[in-house]
């Protein structure tokens, strides 16, 4: 079975400081991993995806994530937060080849001036 645990329900950072959103996954098979972002009253937008190629994945808006199989982690980072990054972030796992996404509970990112 597949599952995802987002270790922080809320993260607060100052503008211009680094962002770290933590995610651990469980999968019996080779996983595909995603990060989605959801701004208020808007749909989910794909930030990045890992599909067994490079372990360091670069996404949109300066975000990146590193797949660490030994730690079963897929943490999302950004060197410098912007006010527009304030949103809900979801870590997602899927079994490779199966189109069923398992979402984490989400991490709400707040960015302060």
């Amino acid at each position: 079975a597949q599952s995802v645990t987002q270790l922080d329900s809320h993260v607060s950072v100052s503008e211009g400081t680094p962002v770290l959103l933590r995610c651990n996954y469980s999968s019996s098979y080779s996983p595909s991993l995603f990060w989605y972002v959801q701004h208020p009253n808007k749909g989910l937008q794909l930030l990045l995806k890992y599909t067994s190629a490079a372990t360091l994945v670069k996404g949109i808006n300066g975000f990146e994530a590193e797949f660490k199989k030994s730690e079963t982690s897929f943490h999302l980072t950004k060197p410098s937060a912007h006010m527009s990054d304030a949103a809900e972030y979801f870590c997602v796992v899927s079994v490779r080849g199966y189109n069923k996404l398992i979402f984490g509970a989400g991490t709400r990112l707040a960015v302060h001036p």
Partner: protein
Amino acid sequence: EAGVVQSPRYKIIEKKQPVAFWCNPISGHNTLYWYRQNLGQGPELLIRYENEEAVDDSQLPKDRFSAERLKGVDSTLKIQPAELGDSAVYLCASSIRILAGGPTDTQYFGPGTRLTVL
């Protein structure tokens, strides 16, 4: 390119009333998904269509929920009768099959329909 379109964006109904949501996927996307997102949680899959065929509806409460995807394009999700616990955001997503058995296809989400049952 137009994204996934959903309507209505908001719906308020009284319990025991019926309600329907409509989704138009991205042109050319053969796979369509309906998700339910409860407040403070991540979305959960209700049903997945490959063209016209529902291939995964294990999480759909079939006593009151129904869905259809006629002609393999637009889809409608219906609840009858609605209950208080059905208040949630209902998301539609679509994807295109790139490679059978390959990496999970990227799903593109619509803005959702926020349902409030009073």
